[in-house]
């Protein structure tokens, strides 16, 4: 019952899917203890952040049917907000708060402007406008190097409680030091969980139902009496705000913000792929999509290396699985997943493209 309320009544609705989601959430919740090591903790934190980023994009693409290429711009606005505040005001919580408020406000405001100017036109034009604005923004960031650090980005101090020097408690639990890194990870995990549940609440609210009606048939939604442009604008702003918050988390986790980590078009493509692999129009898809994608991105090389070593005596195979060919295999995996799960992993597991 409590779970039902926490999930806004929108349960995974499939035993396998429930198992997977619970597995991922538990693994993330205990990641520092289950998978010790800097690299695995970094992977876990990225998964948490990208779940939020992908879920917020799915609110637009999957639930409302709006194609936007500006999502990384909003992600970047949040990240740069915190980065600029921390670099200029020093590593205090006040700077984090100021940067967060500034970045999120700017993201929501910009989203509103883009929405009001271009949501009335056809979907393809909106996509083009977002692409143009996002590109312009990326160029602007690299030009304003005295503020943004240009292509090099910004490195800064995060609040002491989040830095490795901070000791929560002396000693170790399960051989893990209880330091600021751990605090930082749980800040990522809990923020991600909170934002995900918030988005789940939104899509299952009357507002979310109208968004889905607009996706299904915008004219009909209008004829029932919903001013679709308002709903689409609010969805765009909400999605931008949450993306900016994900950017804040990214900035705090990496202690560095640059175009490569927040604004690049590659990240935009990654987000799109994660939404499609997980399943459009279902927020649970973002959990699966982000986890699968980031794990593949980070560990496919190792897996391939293992395969190559295990098959070292055989012809051709070791060459095919040589670690440097990992991008090729990542591509093959995407094609296969889209071919076999056209409605995404979640759509497939739930049995029907709802």
């Amino acid at each position: 019952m409590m779970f039902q309320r926490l999930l806004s009544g929108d349960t995974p609705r499939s035993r396998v899917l429930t198992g997977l989601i619970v597995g991922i959430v538990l693994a993330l919740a205990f990641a520092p203890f289950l998978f010790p090591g800097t690299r695995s903790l970094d992977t876990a934190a990225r998964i948490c952040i990208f779940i939020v980023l992908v879920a917020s994009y799915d609110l637009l693409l999957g639930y409302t049917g709006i194609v936007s290429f500006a999502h990384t711009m909003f992600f970047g606005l949040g990240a740069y907000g915190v980065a600029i505040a921390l670099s200029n005001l020093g590593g205090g919580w006040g700077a984090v708060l100021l940067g967060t408020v500034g970045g999120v406000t700017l993201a929501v405001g910009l989203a509103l402007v883009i929405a009001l100017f271009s949501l009335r036109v056809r979907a393809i034009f909106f996509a083009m406008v977002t692409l143009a604005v996002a590109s312009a923004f990326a160029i602007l960031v690299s030009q304003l190097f005295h503020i943004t650090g240009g292509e090099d980005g910004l490195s800064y101090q995060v609040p002491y409680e989040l830095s490795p020097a901070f000791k929560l408690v002396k000693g170790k639990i399960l051989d893990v030091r209880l330091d600021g890194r751990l605090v930082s990870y749980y800040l990522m995990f809990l923020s991600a969980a909170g934002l995900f549940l918030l988005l789940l609440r939104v899509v299952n609210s009357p507002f979310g139902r109208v968004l889905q009606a607009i996706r299904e048939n915008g004219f009909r939604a209008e004829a029932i009496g919903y001013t679709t442009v308002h709903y689409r604008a609010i969805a765009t702003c909400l999605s931008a705000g949450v993306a900016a918050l994900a950017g804040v988390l990214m900035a705090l986790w990496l202690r560095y913000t640059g175009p490569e980590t927040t604004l690049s078009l590659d990240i935009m493509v990654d987000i799109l792929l994660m939404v499609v692999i997980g399943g459009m129009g279902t927020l649970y898809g973002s959990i699966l999509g982000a986890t699968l994608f980031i794990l593949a991105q980070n560990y496919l090389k190792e897996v391939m290396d293992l395969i190559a070593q295990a098959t070292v005596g055989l012809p051709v195979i070791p060459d095919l699985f040589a670690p440097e060919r990992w991008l090729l295999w990542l591509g093959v995996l995407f094609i296969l997943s889209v071919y076999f799960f056209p409605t995404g992993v979640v759509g497939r597991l739930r049995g029907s493209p709802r």
Partner: protein
Amino acid sequence: MSRTATETSPRTGHQTASHTTNGRPPLLRLSGVHTHIAQYHILQGVDLEIPEGGLTMLLGRNGAGKTTTMRTIMGLWKVSAGEITFAGDRLNGLKTPDIARKSIAHVPETMGIFGGLTVRENMVLAARTGPMDEDRLRWILDLFPSLEKFWNAPAGALSGGQKQMLAIARAVIEPARLLLIDEPTKGLAPAIVGALTEAIRQLKGFGATILMVEQNFAMAKAVGDTVAVMDSGRIVHAGSMADLAEDTALQEGLLGFSMEMHQ
């Protein structure tokens, strides 16, 4: 029916389809409405008055402009000339959602259900102002029991007839002052047409004002109170349904065939 038809000389071009309703002004009035779709001049001066209460049938050959008339009323096509007033308010230039919020419900030819949402969600969306009225919902589900059966199923999985029932149910969950129904029996099996006819009869019993386009003349005759016939983007005849139903010569003149042949 206390209403009597006035000005019903057929095929004289531009007369107003007017039916006195105890001196009350009509609920909906179209005067000289023109609509262009791209370069095509579809409505060429439609004059139509819909009295409050009762069901007005909009008949005519394919391409006469019946659906365009309905879509123009809903603001889905722009009025290029003329005026549409509803309960005294001008509808010209209003956006579709604003027109809908004036309590006009539209059931389009294409039904336009939200296929990815459940039957329940479709209904909840239509009850825009808040939770659904329990009694009204009960009445609707009694009219269309299959909707209750598939209450939590995706609406896209319903059969054609069930989708049509959902489209009508969605339009009546909130008591609309005017209901526009476009060819509800299109492509439906005769058994379902019977159920729909009964549903519309009951709706009338509740005092709903309905404007309906229909090609099934058995149904048109069974439920229609007044009738307006369109041809080439104009109203060419207006009068009582009973008069038209009796006058086979008039039917052949207006519609190209008599209703008797279609029963």
